[in-house]
């Protein structure tokens, strides 16, 4: 039992790393996903949008583990070593962007296109229309989808253990190998994940404010 207690500080450090990495990834995913959803907004045909859709389809279909390996093992093949942490951030961010792009795209569909046209007709710049008219409306709409994905990101961080990132599950595996007490460690690990995820889950249940202006 004492050995297990000795691992607790290491697990907590791992938890901090999990939280940190997740925060970086889901922030990047949300910001870039939002920006991408606004690209060529309103255009009928856009090769750029088609490209973004293809990108989104790719990174939503391929397992995160494979994308991670692509950067971790593939990077050095072309001379760039992202390292475990770098590969994790890039891989998960790309997947996150692909998903969040869909979330924000869906939210944008709810806002009547007329508002955008009206804004432009009034002489407002595109930037102002985006910043002051569209984004404030899509944020509450997208919130549930975005946070659900953010919660998923925290859990998916466990996959980074496959490239030796010292996050919760990696340290857990080491603990199991060293002490031969799998159940104790896995319960601790799952407990930690639940602890981290619960505040986000609770926040997600709150009712969204009236979103679309009518």
């Amino acid at each position, binding site marked *: 039992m004492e*050995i297990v207690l*000795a*691992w607790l500080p*290491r697990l907590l450090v791992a938890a901090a790393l999990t939280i940190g990495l997740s925060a970086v990834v889901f922030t990047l995913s949300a910001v870039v996903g939002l920006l991408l959803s606004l690209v060529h907004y309103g255009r009928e045909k856009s090769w750029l949008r088609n490209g973004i859709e293809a990108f989104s389809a790719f990174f939503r279909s391929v397992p995160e583990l494979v994308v991670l390996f692509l950067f*971790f*093992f593939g*990077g*050095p*093949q072309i*001379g760039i*070593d992202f390292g475990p942490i770098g590969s994790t951030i890039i891989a998960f961010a790309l997947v996150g962007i692909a998903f969040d792009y869909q979330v924000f795209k869906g939210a944008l569909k709810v806002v009547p296109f007329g508002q955008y046209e009206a804004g432009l007709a009034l002489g407002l710049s595109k930037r102002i229309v985006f910043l002051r008219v569209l984004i404030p409306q899509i944020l509450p709409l997208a919130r549930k989808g975005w946070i659900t994905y953010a919660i998923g990101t925290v859990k998916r961080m466990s996959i980074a253990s*496959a*490239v*030796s990132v010292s996050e919760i599950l990696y*340290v857990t595996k*080491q603990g199991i*190998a*060293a*002490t031969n007490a799998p159940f104790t460690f896995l319960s601790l690990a799952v407990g930690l994940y639940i602890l981290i995820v619960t505040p986000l889950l609770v926040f997600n249940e709150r009712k969204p404010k009236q979103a679309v202006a009518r």
Partner: protein
Amino acid sequence: MGIARTALLALIAVFGVSAASAQDYKAALVAPDTITVGTSGSAPPFSMTNAAGELEGFDIDVVNLVAKQLGLTAKFEKLDFAGLLPGLTAGRFDLIASGVTRTPERLASKDFFLLSPYIVNGAAITRREADTDITSWKDVCGKTMGAVRGGAFQKVAKEKLPADCVTKSREYPGATELFLDLENRRIDFAAHDFLGPKYLAKSGKLTGAVTLDDLLTTITQSVAVSNKNKPLADAIDAQFETWRKDGTLQGLADKWFGASIDWSKAQ
């Protein structure tokens, strides 16, 4: 005076040259004055993680000795075995020290330098104590074999055993998972090295299993060096040559394996 001066100049030249070539290996290192080492941390007792989470083992000791000799700091990075050689080829590490078996393919490979042996070992069966029907490599046909992913033993077994002898096999990220599954009865035997599991049994880390003395073949192991750093490979090879003769490697073998190495078995 003339001869003395010439002798002095010659001495300086010799030292100068050897000093220069000795420093050549520093030029191609991944990080300055550091030797970046890839190891699995799950290949006991070559490379293991102890209860405090630190790396230790035969390989760790060898690398630390090498680093001291060459005036470098050793920095270890852990990665599952299957990722080590690709990582070396891709320039992530200077050196791999993880009980790398010297197979003909690896020795012929231009992707890295596999050095002269630092230990003599063998391909052995480890099975549960209770399974007395496996007494040697002749008895494994039809049984489920386990091996480490990316390792040498499944190939060695396939080559040396009759065709279709072993049809069911499982692969694992490391020796730790391999022996766990042996214990958990998901495989009938583990095809692995001889010294490793013997150490585990002796130190009480592996219970209820026995490693058979029947070796399918002798194997030798060593470290692999990045093909971008031939001076490093040569320097370490030279060290190994010295250490084989002066008993340093034997001393380490005594510490970690409690076995005496018969260097004549190494080709």
